[in-house]
């Protein structure tokens, strides 16, 4: 074995070739890797070291710059945790109809302007003591700036029949333009209201699954077809 290569031009060049500006500084805050991310990785790289074959099973060829499992174009998939969770005070028990609103914050500073998004899926996990008649209604709006500011434009409203499995909301399309550029920090205001009198639910976890295509790393796109 050899001593690790000291950082320098060689590793910088390799980082740049991988489309990364710099290696994350210090040890990252290790957290469990979401099962979906493992599944997507294993689908494309069933072995820890790549044997150079591009097939998942005999005869199946993976499309370049495409995420088969999600059915969209893309070569970068990010699982972005909610940064607002730690600062969110536990909800006080409140009477039905006055359920709290939550502000969730996603750090999108790593997304580059050249990247074109093809999927932006909110994944929310709620906990509730009871299931109201007719289920719940989820509303997602742009959060106002500053504490206590009223929410901005409502991006989507969605019926949620039951709480249990994660609630998924697609932001691209109706809620967010496909060609719109992403802010460095996306702040959303969430509300989940019971359709019939019932105790409020609690937001247990929020994350954003963002799929983008960076054409600069997608040679087949760049290579003129003969």
């Amino acid at each position, binding site marked *: 074995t*050899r001593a*690790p290569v000291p950082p320098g031009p060689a590793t910088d060049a390799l980082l740049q070739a991988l489309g990364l500006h710099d290696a994350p500084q210090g040890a990252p805050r290790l957290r469990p890797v979401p099962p979906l991310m493992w599944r*997507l990785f294993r689908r494309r*790289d069933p072995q820890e070291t*790549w044997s*150079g*074959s591009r097939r998942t099973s005999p005869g199946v060829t993976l499309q370049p*710059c495409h995420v088969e499992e999600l059915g969209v174009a893309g070569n*970068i998939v*990010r699982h972005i945790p909610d940064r607002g969770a730690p600062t969110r005070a536990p909800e006080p028990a409140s009477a039905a109809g006055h359920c709290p609103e939550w502000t969730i914050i996603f750090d999108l500073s790593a997304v580059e302007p050249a990247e074109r998004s093809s999927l932006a899926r909110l994944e929310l996990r709620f906990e509730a003591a009871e299931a109201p008649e007719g289920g719940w209604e989820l509303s997602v709006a742009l959060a106002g700036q500053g504490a206590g500011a009223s929410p901005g434009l409502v991006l989507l409203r969605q019926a949620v029949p039951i709480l249990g499995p994660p609630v998924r909301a697609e932001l691209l399309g109706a809620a967010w333009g496909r060609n719109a550029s992403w802010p460095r920090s996306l702040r959303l205001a969430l509300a989940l209201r019971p359709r019939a009198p019932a105790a409020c639910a609690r937001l247990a976890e929020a994350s954003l699954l963002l799929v983008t295509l960076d054409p600069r790393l997608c040679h087949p796109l760049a290579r003129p077809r003969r």
Partner: protein
Amino acid sequence: GAEPMLGGGPGGACRARRLYVSFREVGWHRWVIAPRGFLANYCQGQCALPAALSGPGGPPALNHAVLRALMHAAAPGAADLPCCVPARLSPISVLFFDNSDNVVLRQYEDMVVDECGCR
């Protein structure tokens, strides 16, 4: 880890040589989740005749490469030999933590040399 590079001189015919890139060796093992490394390989070897005609199972020879090898055989000083370069490549995917603690999966095309050819 790599096969020992061929020194100067004739060496073997043009083909892919084993090169394993270890993320631990470049010091990225704390933020790269998977894989631990990948077989990038590299091309090296002679492209004189008959190697330029590519052996069984290799990529089809480019006529121009054969022409250059012929010219070199006829008048060594007149033309260089063709080069031994990647002829077929494969992608890899890397799963890692980025600076914002996001879990990121990136696909990189043309990262693994599957076949070499004389060009």
